[in-house]
């Protein structure tokens, strides 16, 4: 500095402390990390939930919807029928209540249908042909992803309408048909060919048509039967056929005044609620164990009870006759298994619906070389491929949990492997980040925000109609709900690290890149790590 120009009595030059690089003190350094949020980890369809909530928080619903669509072509359907394991694993449940992810997804899905958001058909076509057998959630999901990869996709289904179990298993009061039709049509609009009432009976023959790969997703449509002695005029039918007929027949099946449904799964609930809607005065679910052992989801049981469905626990049906049946009381043994007690009672009933599980109809695979069926399901490897090269399978016909979301996930996974197979490569999934566990969060920073509930039609009112039971969130409450997301393990630009650094060693870069540590001055105190709300900074030892 020029001494001539110093103010009076100032003799020293002023140097900045920036000359003192305090970063040399450091023994540990903070680094920004992206962790796997538990919701994403739990999603059977592999959605990046935290990322689409991030967009929804900003009110950018289309970006949020497109983020879902990268993994799952059915946001509006998911938002109604998914059992949302994401919410069961949500870290916010330990603060107040889990984020209503499913409700926000439905809002986004409905918004897309209302606004007519679409995806562009693929621009580069590969010329490869893929046959998808079955137009259920798994088949349609695979067709959607395969088409987006640029393949030519044909979907064949034995039924008269697309949707599989989404149409023939899930009643319309849970999934209105215009929603289903809208989301299926959007897939077809990408250029997927759908051939209905075209049952594939002969796989070898279909293969000979020149398909380069096949994805089998025929589902499990055959209701399991149990031997129950019955009089000649007893009316017994299975739940799957019953729900199917409700959907397809002009004359709805009439079951009489009192209907008994036998079983404890979600299908039993659906059958009973449907019977009630079709005019049964009483619908009774008979189950051999107790309510807490029921495979049906608790909220479905609760909704059924609200509608006046009666539930009879610890009972098995021994004999059915015209107008009545004999039920034996059961008692749970020490292992929780029901044992007969020898006590019997009579139950008045006009018909019996069996909801004892479903099996896949795999007759068309008989004699197909390489494909093995075990325990009624098709064996597949880690890439969803059967023993036959180029033939993949997914959904209810392979060993897995049988839900729409799992099926959709199979479709995506299989599509990726089929795409790689068609390109002569192997699909390598990206490595997963470590999970963002609750202990990494600093929950102080999350303001109390009550969970926004979706309204339900009143039980007594809804039992007489097929109107949708659960209504959607308004934009206001959907955005509020999205903003309850704690963004576990992923920076959401709260500026805490930028603020709490006593050494001014955190820089804001930009909204996409977030923040950067200035290691010239970072002393490694760890305050940014401790005060990061979402746990997206870690301390690592200096080398």
């Amino acid at each position: 500095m020029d001494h001539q120009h110093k103010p009076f009595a100032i003799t020293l030059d002023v140097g900045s402390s920036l000359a003192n690089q305090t970063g040399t003190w450091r023994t540990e350094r903070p680094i920004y990390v992206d962790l796997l949020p538990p919701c994403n980890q739990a999603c059977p369809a592999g959605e990046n939930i935290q990322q689409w909530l991030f967009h929804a928080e900003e009110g950018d619903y289309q970006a949020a919807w497109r983020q879902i669509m990268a993994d799952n072509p059915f946001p509006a359907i998911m938002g109604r029928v998914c059992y949302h394991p994401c919410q069961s694993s949500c870290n916010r449940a330990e603060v107040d209540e889990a984020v209503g992810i499913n409700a926000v997804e439905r809002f986004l899905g409905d918004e897309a249908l209302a606004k007519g958001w679409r995806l562009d058909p693929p621009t580069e076509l590969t010329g490869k042909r893929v046959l998808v057998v079955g137009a259920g959630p798994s088949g349609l999901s695979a067709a959607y992803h395969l088409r987006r990869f640029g393949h030519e996709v044909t979907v064949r289904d034995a039924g008269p309408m697309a949707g599989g179990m989404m149409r023939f298993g899930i009643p319309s009061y849970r999934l209105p048909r215009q929603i289903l039709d809208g989301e299926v049509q959007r897939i077809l609009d990408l250029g997927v060919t759908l051939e209905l009432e075209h049952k594939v009976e002969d796989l070898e023959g279909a293969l000979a048509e020149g398909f380069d790969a096949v994805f089998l997703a025929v589902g499990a449509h055959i209701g399991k039967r149990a031997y129950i002695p019955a009089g000649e005029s007893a009316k017994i039918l299975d739940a799957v056929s019953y729900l199917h007929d409700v959907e397809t027949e002009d004359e709805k099946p009439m079951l009489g005044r009192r209907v008994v449904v036998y079983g404890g799964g979600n299908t039993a609930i659906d059958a009973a609620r449907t019977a009630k809607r079709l005019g049964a005065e009483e619908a009774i679910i008979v189950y051999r164990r107790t309510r807490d052992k029921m495979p049906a989801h608790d909220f479905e049981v609760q909704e059924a009870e609200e509608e006046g469905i009666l539930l009879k626990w610890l009972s098995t049906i021994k004999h059915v006759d015209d107008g009545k049946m004999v039920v034996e009381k059961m008692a749970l043994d020490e292992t929780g298994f029901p044992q007969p007690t020898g006590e019997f009672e009579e139950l008045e009933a006009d018909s019996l619906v069996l909801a004892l599980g479903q099996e896949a109809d795999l007759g068309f695979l008989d004699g197909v070389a390489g494909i093995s069926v075990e325990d009624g399901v098709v064996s597949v490897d880690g890439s969803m491929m059967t023993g036959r090269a180029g033939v993949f399978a997914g959904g209810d016909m392979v060993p897995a949990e049988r839900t729409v979301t799992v099926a959709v996930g199979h479709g995506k996974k299989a599509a990726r492997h089929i795409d790689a197979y068609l390109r002569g490569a192997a699909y390598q999934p990206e490595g997963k980040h470590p999970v963002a566990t609750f202990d990494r969060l600093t929950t102080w920073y999350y303001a109390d925000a009550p969970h926004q509930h979706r309204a339900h039609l009143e039980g007594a009112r809804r039992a007489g109609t097929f109107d949708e039971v659960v209504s959607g969130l308004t934009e206001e409450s959907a955005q509020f709900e999205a903003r309850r997301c704690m963004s576990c393990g992923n920076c959401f630009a709260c500026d805490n690290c930028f603020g709490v650094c006593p050494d001014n060693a955190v820089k804001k870069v930009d909204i996409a890149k977030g923040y950067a540590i200035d290691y010239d001055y970072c002393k490694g105190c760890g305050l940014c790590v401790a005060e990061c709300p979402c746990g997206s900074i870690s301390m690592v030892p200096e080398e």
Partner: protein
Amino acid sequence: MTTPETTDLADQAGFHHGVVPDVLHTEPAAAPVKFYQVGSFAVGNRLLPLEVRSVQSDPNRTNALTSGHRACQGCGEALGARYALDAAMHAAKGRMVAVNATGCLEVFSTPYPETSWRVAWLHSLFGNAPAVASGVAAAYKAMGRDDIRVVAQGGDGGTVDIGFGCLSGMFERNDDVLYICYDNEAYMNTGIQRSGATPPAARTATTQAVGDEPGNVFGQGKDLPRIAMAHEIPYVATASVDNLHDLEAKVHRAMSMKGARYIHVLVPCPLGWGTASSATVSVARLATQSGLFPIFEAEYGEVVSSVPIRRRVPVEDYLKAQKRFAHLFSPTRRDDVIERLQAQADRNIRRYNLLPQGDSPEQPDLTDQPPRHDPAFTSQTLPTAAEETSH
């Protein structure tokens, strides 16, 4: 019985400073940011409108105390000083002089020939910062410059003990200075000796954890915010590094007033308190959430608002987090001492009305719709300084 008549001089009831406004503030300086997710408590939020973001979230903040200073890792005072002076610079639109007492803050920031200060900054002695600041204010007044504001700052040693006489004089004369005390509860710079702000039972170099009553004795020390209130100066407030929005709002409110103003900021010291360097903010939070360090504002000697406790914790949680209180838990647990400290916290809670009220649950409110993908992430510039209304 006669009813006491209201005197015409009721509005001049302030015994030192003449006119007391008819109406004091009834709302706390920090209006709660009505925003779910983290907007109410975190430093910033990409979804918040610019005008309700904190000064610290602005990439163009003053950075009054910049990188390269020699404060320990996780220094609460360095953090508190930047929070406070950046807010003051924001309020003063950059026209501000800071006077610094001797102490850690001066020693770690300005060893010859370097300084970390990026504000006009003046240091004289340990005990005379309030007097020097009074002089600076007087000088500007004499020069007819009423646009330049004066802030003085020091640690608890320089404020509560050594500079106390000068500070009381500055208050008494109602000099136009905002004095900010960064309280880390001992003389840390010279090796953790007890100060008048050291809490009872705390171990320091001069109050060792020995004898029947280990650590600092009960019944001594000074509550400087209350002493400042007794001077009936226009504004007295407490704040803590765990509540940035409140701290900044108080600095802004203080800067909007004239006369002597005092803000007392809790700044944990990892070295002196025996805490991890990463725990500076969280231990401050335990201090405020236990009630041991009440957060309030007072005008003309009257408490006008306080920040309620949000998630109340027993004082034990706060004490256990610090090695300076380790002797209360080992080798023998001193329930008698812990209970006395809890009683202090309980008294604060009663005295300042800190009873937990919880967050008032926020409801959907889209009136705060921000621009999407805020481009201001890197170039945030707050419109203008807060309005400078004379109180």
